[in-house]
């Protein structure tokens, strides 16, 4: 298959996958408590369906989707709801947010699932409903509710290609690799479901060319399956080839137009973990309650992949990996490139968590004293989005954010390539994140001030009108004192309402 290339990227990033990739996936034990932040996906937070004290079973829906873009949440094990309150969430802000906490009973009772023997009997919309009800969101990082992506009904798009993202380009992370090694058959079955749902012509499963054994196991699964529409390809190992846009460019040569979604060019891209979850939901009827996650880094004694229940506190996962080593320095959720540091290990993993990296001092890019930007342009040549990071940096730094927006700040995918190559050690991505969030706040403030202006002006008008009316009334009253036949009074009232109407139209 012909492959294309994208601008920049980092071909020679240290991989660090061996630490975790060689051991089989271990099923993590049920922890004492499971914590479910209500907003763990893109879109509106879910609405709790349970109350403190309720008993729940594994697979039971404990919070329902709220609005179009949202996803339900299911309990990961049986137990009792002990609180619905703020809890530390995995977010760079270190904020707490409303969460449901379940104390598990150790029995791990499940609800009755309704498996499906032949998914081809189901219509696309029925399948979308299953996916939605199973609480499946993108497991590749963004946690976007998958059902929306797959629901092409009534939308002016036709999907031509489904891209299965198994690139896993970030260093250290190996959960998708392990998944494909061990459960390729089920993933391929998931792909078939997708093809059926989307009536797409073809599916491409892409993995990096540095994991040949995994590729073989996928090919075996495809051969078993005998579906000519499914293809597996090896793509060059260049970070961030797993980024949706870069992957699409690599495989199809097309670019997703800025600000648009892949569906516009007939493509849906889905992480292989997500596909696995879809297969589980459709075939076995199981909602999303667990996922495969890499726990790695020099900071843990036994780095490997776990299948862990969503909601498990990180501390429990660390215990499964035989605890921290002496080198443990920083706790990072996600990979070293795009992850963020966590303030504590009393934080649950969420659906989007693909990796817990317990890094030693030298594993994370040590924060060297940033020197001035010397405009060398290395960042621009590394940027997969073909932006000019140095210029974005100058303008973010000096708070000329509108100029940064003009230079396509919002096309930055925060991949961190520019950070890595910058000889002056400037934390560029942090500047861009700052700029983006500051812009969001500014827009909010702008909106608020517009609302305030409208309300202020409306009030001014109202006051003016009332004053005029009062004046009118007192004049009328005086006039009425002289002679007040009833008819006249009615006339006056009619007039009054007329002038009122007039004044309103005049204002427009």
């Amino acid at each position: 298959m012909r492959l294309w290339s994208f601008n920049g990227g980092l071909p020679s990033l240290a991989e660090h996958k061996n630490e975790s990739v060689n051991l089989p996936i271990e099923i993590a034990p049920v922890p004492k408590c499971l914590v479910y932040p209500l907003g763990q996906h893109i879109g509106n937070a879910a609405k709790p369906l349970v109350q403190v004290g309720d008993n729940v079973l594994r697979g039971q829906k404990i919070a329902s989707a709220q609005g179009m873009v949202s996803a339900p949440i299911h309990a990961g094990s049986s137990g009792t709801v002990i609180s619905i309150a703020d809890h530390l969430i995995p977010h760079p802000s270190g904020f707490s947010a409303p969460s449901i906490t379940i104390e598990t009973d150790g029995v791990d009772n499940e609800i009755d699932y309704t498996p499906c023997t032949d998914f081809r009997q189901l219509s696309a919309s029925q399948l979308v409903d299953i996916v939605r009800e199973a609480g499946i969101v993108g497991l590749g990082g963004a946690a976007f509710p998958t059902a929306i992506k797959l629901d092409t009904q009534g939308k002016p798009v036709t999907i031509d290609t489904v891209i299965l993202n198994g690139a896993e380009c970030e260093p250290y992370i190996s959960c998708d690799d392990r998944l494909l090694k061990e459960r390729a058959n089920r993933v391929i079955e998931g792909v078939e479901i997708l093809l059926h749902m989307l009536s797409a012509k073809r599916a491409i499963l892409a993995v990096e060319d540095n994991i040949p054994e995994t590729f073989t196991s996928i090919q075996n699964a495809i051969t078993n399956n005998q579906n000519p529409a499914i293809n597996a390809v090896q793509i060059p190992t260049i970070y961030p080839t797993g980024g949706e846009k870069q992957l699409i460019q690599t495989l199809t040569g097309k670019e997703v137009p800025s600000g648009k979604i892949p569906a516009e060019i007939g493509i849906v891209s889905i992480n292989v973990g997500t596909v696995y979850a879809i297969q589980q939901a459709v075939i076995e009827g199981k909602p999303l309650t667990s996922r495969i996650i890499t726990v790695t880094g020099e900071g843990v004694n036994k780095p490997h992949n776990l299948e862990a229940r969503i909601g498990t506190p990180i501390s429990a996962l660390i215990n499964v990996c035989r605890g921290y080593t002496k080198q443990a320095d920083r706790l990072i959720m996600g990979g070293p490139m795009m992850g963020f540091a966590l303030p504590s290990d009393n934080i649950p993993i969420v659906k989007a968590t693909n990796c817990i990296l317990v890094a030693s001092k030298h594993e994370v890019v040590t924060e060297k004293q940033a020197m001035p930007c010397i405009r060398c342009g290395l960042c621009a040549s590394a940027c997969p989005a073909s932006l000019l990071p140095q210029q974005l940096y100058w303008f973010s730094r000096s708070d000329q954010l509108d100029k940064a927006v003009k230079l396509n700040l919002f096309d930055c995918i925060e991949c961190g390539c520019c950070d890595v190559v910058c000889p002056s050690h400037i934390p560029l991505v942090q500047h861009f994140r700052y700029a983006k969030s500051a812009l969001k706040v500014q827009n909010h403030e702008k909106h608020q001030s517009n609302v305030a202006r409208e309300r202020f002006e409306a009030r001014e008008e109202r006051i003016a009108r009332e004053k005029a009316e009062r004046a009118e009334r007192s004049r009328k009253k005086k006039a009425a004192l002289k002679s007040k036949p009833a008819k006249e009074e009615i006339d006056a009232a009619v007039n009054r309402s007329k002038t009122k109407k007039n004044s309103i139209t005049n204002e427009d």
Partner: protein
Amino acid sequence: MSEYLLILVSTILVNNFVLVKFLGLCPFMGVSNKLETAMGMGFATTFVLTLASICSYLANQYLLAPLGLEYLRTITFIVVIAVVVQMTEAIVHKTSPLLHQVLGIYLPLITTNCAVLGVALLSVQEDHNFIESGLYGFGAALGFSLVLVLFSTIRERITVSDVPEPFRGNAIALVTAGLMSVAFMGFSGLIKF
């Protein structure tokens, strides 16, 4: 033909009105904070300067010289310029709000741009004919616009720099103008006098 080219090269590069002849400096310093405004000012100046140069030539040739009133040159020129500017402003304001957005606010500033009067006076001093006067004004204005636009982009760059406190603002801008002037000395000798 080549003498016309010489006039252009001379006024734009070698004897740049701003950096070499020291004319039109106040707007050069004043409206060079942003590229957009600099461009607006550049357009406005080019238009007015050319027009003023021509009008002054006509006034001088057909009014002052025949009447022997050369000593009233300054007065006549400046009033003619002020009127040209104000008329342009009024007309643009009414007829093309869009153009007025671009040029309008700069037009009144131009009357007090000494480059305009300077062009008129120097042009008369150098005995230019009609076409030469127009070209002289046009070239001077192009030279003005060129350095104004370049200067504004450099100033935009300076605003994102770590300039030491006492130099922020006008001081560093003047130093920059000085260095630009050094650079423009590289053009000296292109035109022999």
